[in-house]
């Protein structure tokens, strides 16, 4: 059993254009059928800090979202017990993980990532890795991929 092969990847904010002084457009995530989720914020080149980065949840698709306590950067503690930090203007290429035990959460998750007001902005992408599935993904499509090769 290879754990990564039993996970589903979901694109929430694909790599696209520069973002500056705005919130990312992030697709809502339906977590039904899974017990764990890691939401990954991946920075590319950036010259401005984020002013907000947090996860929200709702029982209803598309509305009613509220912050998930513990998943608000700069407010919540990180896994090492320190106050977490928002992405800064020099966190190029860095990963920010939001790990969620879905057994205690509402079905729909979303991410609010707000980029500060710089002169050039930065590149950002967001994706989710869903795991501990009720039914293990065993096709390429169920894994969330276009193609999968393995050796």
């Amino acid at each position, binding site marked *: 059993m290879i754990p990564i092969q039993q996970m589903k990847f979901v694109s929430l904010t694909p790599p696209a254009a520069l973002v500056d002084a705005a919130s990312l457009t992030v697709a809502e995530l339906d977590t039904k059928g899974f017990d764990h989720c890691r939401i990954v914020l991946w920075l590319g*080149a*950036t*010259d*401005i800090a*984020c*002013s907000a980065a947090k996860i929200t949840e709702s029982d209803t698709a598309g509305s009613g979202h509220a912050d998930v306590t513990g998943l608000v950067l700069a407010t919540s503690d990180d896994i090492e017990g320190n106050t977490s930090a928002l992405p800064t203007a*020099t966190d*190029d*290429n860095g990963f920010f993980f939001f790990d969620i035990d879905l057994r205690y959460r509402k079905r729909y998750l979303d991410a609010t990532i707000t980029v500060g007001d710089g002169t*050039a902005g930065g590149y950002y992408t967001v994706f989710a890795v869903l795991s501990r599935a009720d039914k293990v993904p065993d096709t390429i499509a169920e894994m969330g991929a276009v193609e999968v090769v393995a050796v």
Partner: protein
Amino acid sequence: MTSPWLVVGASPSAPKYLGVALARRPAAKTITTNASIRLFDKHRLDYYFLSDHVACGKHSGEARQMQTNGTKVITLQRVDDALRTRGVETADLKLKAVGPGGHAELVRGTYHHAGSLSGNWITQFAINNGADEIHWVGLEGYASTDDRVVPDHWDEAPGPPRGQFINHRCAQPFLQSCIDHCPDIHFVFYGKPQIQLAGENLEMVQ
């Protein structure tokens, strides 16, 4: 013995006032950033700051060339592959930036993310390296707005659409904080600023 610095931005008046400032202080240390590297083909450039990834794409090659003439290139510390992507991995100095983003106030002795403006970074560098006289050339700010984008640089490159917002949010508070927190430094501002600055240690040259 004074330690004057010429801190040179890229606003439209930069070429004119660079000559004026150099005539006044020919022995001043010089620092500039981004496109204004091209103003120093005939003058000595001691330091060149390059960090903005858009500017790096345009000027990292020129920066490396200036290093062969003795110019020290300065950038911000990032992970190695990010520095390589920007072409500044050979920079002489990599400043460790501190503080939250948008902190538009000088904290003497540190390098704060002062609104991500390159003009603010080079001002911090001059202050932190012993300047007792700072000549601000080409730091007049932006005239561009969301409704009207105009050439805001000496090379006629357009300003950012939120130029005036950036002036008031980042440029003015930071430069004014330098004047306020550094009474031991004499500041000379060249040109017609898009921002309001005041202080007993500030001299305006127009």
